[in-house]
């Protein structure tokens, strides 16, 4: 056999060498020297010092994670806040009209629902669920409730722009308050089952 190639030597080192290569290595001092050199190179590579990143990167990683979490929450709550604010403006107008109309009992109900929804959102924000731990089932329940709230918010936005009746708005806000209440409960109690 001719001298071992680098492929042969690496295969021998990795325990995959042919019998012929093994025999040659046993007989050839030059190839044994190359084989030893290959081992030494491998050892030298492994002995290279570990490197440290020159700059701190955790703060950037953390900022990006927190930003993603905020964006996710805003995806649910921004609509809610926007609609709530729009409704509140409407409620002020309704409040003035209340003095003039006996039918304005529903306006007070609407205002109460909007305020209740806002209080629940505030309570949830104060609870800071992003900093807390949820088990998998609770997290799944939260995601489902948030999705349903997003659908309600869409309905509210359409109802506002389409001049929906007071009764329709009341129903949407009732549903929203109920879902917000469930969302707060599932975060606080971490209950996996909230009657969905």
């Amino acid at each position, binding site marked *: 056999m001719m001298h071992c*190639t*680098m*492929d042969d*030597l*690496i295969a021998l080192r990795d325990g995959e060498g042919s019998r012929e290569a093994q025999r040659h290595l046993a007989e050839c001092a030059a190839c044994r*020297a*190359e084989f030893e*050199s*290959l081992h*030494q*190179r*491998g050892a*030298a*590579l*492994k002995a*290279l010092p*570990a*490197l*440290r*990143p*020159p*700059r701190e*990167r*955790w703060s*950037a*990683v*953390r900022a*990006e*994670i*927190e930003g993603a979490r905020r964006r996710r929450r805003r995806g649910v709550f921004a609509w809610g806040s926007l609609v709530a604010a729009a409704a509140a403006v409407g409620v002020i107008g309704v409040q003035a009209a209340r003095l003039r109309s006996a039918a304005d009992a529903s306006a007070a109900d609407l205002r109460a629902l909007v305020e209740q929804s806002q209080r629940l959102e505030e309570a949830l924000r104060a609870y800071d669920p992003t*900093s807390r*731990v*949820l088990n998998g089932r609770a997290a799944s329940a939260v995601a489902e409730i948030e999705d349903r709230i997003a659908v309600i918010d869409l309905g509210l936005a359409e109802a506002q722009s389409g001049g929906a009746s007071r009764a329709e708005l009341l129903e949407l806000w009732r549903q929203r308050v109920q879902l917000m209440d469930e969302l707060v409960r599932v975060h606080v109690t971490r209950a996996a089952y909230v009657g969905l």
Partner: protein
Amino acid sequence: MLAALDDLAIQRAKTGDLEALEQVYRAYEGVVYTLARRICRTAEDAEDVLQETFLEVCRSIGRFRGTEPGSLTAWIKRVAASKALMRVRREKYREADDLSDGDEVLGRRDPDVALQLDLEEALGRLSDRSRTVVWLHDVEGYTHEDIAELMGMTVSFSKSQLARAHSRLRGWLGREPV
């Protein structure tokens, strides 16, 4: 050297706890940066890979199911290697030494007048692919099958790149590594 990271910290990290995720980062930043730096051409790229790796780790650690000792290390290293390879491909580094066949170059070079580079410098002279293969195989202990899968190449390609890398290192370093 890995900093101590207990099971509780790992479990908390899986739930998204930022303090626990930072512990994971602190434990692995050196490992990930070293791996990234050996694959990428520049320190800046390696830093970006470090950041991308931990963003991926933070997003995905909740789905990590490994329980064997060392499985978290292996997973994080694999994420890092994958990100580093993506970075190398994205940057379209010039494979300068692929323009001329390395074995021919080595064949023409008298071993006695081999360039006396130090090992780090010699590693840096290898093509990105050769350097990646020699590092992943000889230092990180990846099999040729692992490397082929990671790089989207064949097993024989991985083997030939390893032999090519060692031939060049031998030529540049002389018989004894400096």
